[in-house]
C-alpha cells in the first residue's frame, strides 16, 4: 500500500508539527472535558483538611523551572489550602534551580491573603545544598540548617520560627518534588526516622514509584503530575492552569497512543511488501 510506504519514511518533523498543533488547539479553544478526583488525590486533600487550623506546617518545594506545569499548580493550591486554614507555613527548597520560582509562586498566592504577613504567617527559608544531609540536620533544629531565610533575614528572629524547633513542631509535611532530592529522600530520612506524617505532589514521571509508599501509609496522599494537580484544583473548587491543560493532555495522549499503534501496523507488513 503506497500510503503505508510514505508513512514508513515520514520525516519526524511532521510528527512534531502535529503534536504541537494538537497541544496548542485546546489551549486556545478549550474542550472542558470532565475530571474525576481519584483516591490518592483525595487522600492528599483529606490529610491537609485534618491538620488543626492555626498549626504550623512544613512545606518543601523541591523543583526548578523544568517542573513548572506540574509543580506550580500543586504549590499554589496547597499553599492556598493551608493559608485558608490559618495555618502558618514554613517553606524550604532543596533544588538549586528552584528558590526564585518558588518565592514568586508563594508571593503571588500570599497577595490573595492581605492579612497574612511574611515572617509572621509564612516564611520561605530558601535553598540549602546537601540533599539528605539537610533533612537530617533539620531534625535537630530547622534554623540550624537555615540560619538565614530566602530574603537574607535572620530566621531565628522571625515570629513564625519562634514556635518552630524541629520536626516535632509540625503535624504534617507537604512535599512538592520533581525528583532527587525529593519525596523518596523525605520518606527515608524524615518520615521513617522522625515519623513526620507527609503528603506528596510529584511529577508524573516519578509518580508510579511512589505508589508503594502510598499503599504502605508512608505517604498519606499523592498528586501525580498535571492530572493530579488538576484533580486537586477540582477538589478545592479552583480552575487553575493544570485544569486548563488537561484538554491538551488528552489530545497529546491520544496522539502518542495512535503513533504507537500506527508505527507497529506499518512495520507488521510482510517483508516483501515492504521491500
Amino acid at each position, binding site marked *: 500500500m503506497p500510503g503505508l510506504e510514505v508513512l514508513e519514511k*515520514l520525516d*519526524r518533523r511532521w*510528527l*512534531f508539527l502535529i*503534536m*504541537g498543533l494538537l*497541544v496548542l488547539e485546546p489551549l486556545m479553544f478549550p474542550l472542558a*472535558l*470532565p475530571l*474525576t478526583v*481519584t*483516591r490518592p488525590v483525595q487522600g492528599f486533600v483529606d490529610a491537609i483538611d485534618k491538620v488543626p487550623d492555626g498549626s504550623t506546617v512544613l512545606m518543601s518545594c523541591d523543583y*526548578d*523551572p*523544568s517542573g*513548572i506545569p506540574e509543580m506550580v499548580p500543586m504549590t499554589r493550591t496547597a499553599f492556598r489550602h493551608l493559608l485558608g486554614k490559618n495555618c502558618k507555613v514554613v517553606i524550604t527548597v532543596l533544588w*538549586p*534551580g528552584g528558590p*526564585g*520560582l518558588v*518565592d*514568586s509562586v508563594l*508571593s503571588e498566592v500570599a497577595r490573595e491573603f492581605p492579612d497574612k504577613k511574611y515572617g509572621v504567617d509564612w516564611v520561605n527559608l530558601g535553598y*540549602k*545544598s*546537601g540533599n539528605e*544531609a*539537610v533533612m*537530617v*540536620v533539620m531534625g*535537630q533544629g530547622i534554623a*540550624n540548617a537555615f540560619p*538565614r*531565610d530566602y*530574603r*537574607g*533575614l535572620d530566621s531565628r528572629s522571625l515570629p513564625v520560627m519562634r514556635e518552630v524547633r524541629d520536626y516535632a513542631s509540625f503535624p504534617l509535611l507537604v512535599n512538592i518534588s520533581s525528583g532527587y532530592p525529593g519525596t523518596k529522600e523525605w520518606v527515608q530520612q524524615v518520615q521513617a*526516622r522522625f515519623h513526620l506524617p507527609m503528603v506528596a505532589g510529584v511529577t508524573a514521571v516519578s509518580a*508510579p*514509584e511512589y*505508589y*508503594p509508599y502510598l*499503599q504502605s501509609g508512608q505517604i498519606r496522599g499523592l498528586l501525580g503530575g498535571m*492530572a493530579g494537580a488538576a484533580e486537586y484544583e477540582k477538589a478545592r473548587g479552583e480552575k487553575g492552569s493544570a485544569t486548563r491543560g*488537561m*484538554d491538551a*493532555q*488528552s*489530545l*497529546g*495522549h*491520544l496522539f*502518542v*497512543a495512535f*503513533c*504507537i499503534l*500506527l*508505527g*507497529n501496523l506499518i*512495520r507488521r507488513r510482510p517483508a516483501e511488501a515492504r521491500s
Partner: protein
Amino acid sequence: MKRELPLAITAAIGVFMILSFFVPHQAVSVPADFLQASAIIVVAFGYVLGGANVLRVNFDGIYKRQPDWPYKILLLAGLIVTFAIGAIDGVEQHGGFLDQGTRSKWIYDNLYSPMSATMFSLLAFFIASAAFRAFRIRTVEAGLLALAALLVMLGRVPVGDLATHWLPAPARLGAIQDWIMNVPQNAAKRAILIGAALGVMATGLRVILGIERSYLSGEE
C-alpha cells in the same frame, strides 16, 4: 596519605553516621550533626568548583579556537555577568540576592527560567517521534508493556472516561488504570524498591569498608 587516609576517613565517618541512627546520646548525635552540617558546606564548595571548571574549559576552548568558539564567548559573558550582578545584589540585600525586584531575580525570571523550562519541553516532541519509530511490539512481554502503557495513558486523562462512560464503572478506562497502578504496577515497583534497597545497603557497606574505591579516581 593519598589512599589510606581517605579510606580511613570514609570508614570512620560512615560507621559513625550509621551509629548515630541508633544512639540518641549527645556524645554521638552532636558530632554526627556537625558532620552533616559540614557535608552541606563542602558540597556547596563542590558546586562552586563545577562552575569554576565551566569557566576554565570554555576559556580553553576560545583560546584554542575549538568549534563553535564564538558561542563560547557568549557563554562566558553570561556566566560572568550573572555572577557579578549576583555578587552585587547579595551585598546590597544581605545575602537575599534573589529577592523580588533585584537584577538577579530579573535574570532568573527572564533568562534562566524560560530557557530551562523550554529545553525540557522539547522532550514532548521526541517522545511522539520515538513512539512512532522505535516502539516495537515483537514479543509477548513488549505487548504487555504496550497494553499497560496504552491503558494507563488513556485512563489517566479525561478522554479515557469520556470514551468509556457507557460501560459499567469497574470496566471504564479510569477504573482499569487505577487497578493497574494499585495492583500489578505496585507489586512490581515494590519488588524493585526492595531489591534496590538491598543493593544500596550492600554498596554503602562496601564503600564504608573500603572495598569499593572508585571515588578515589584510580590514581596512585
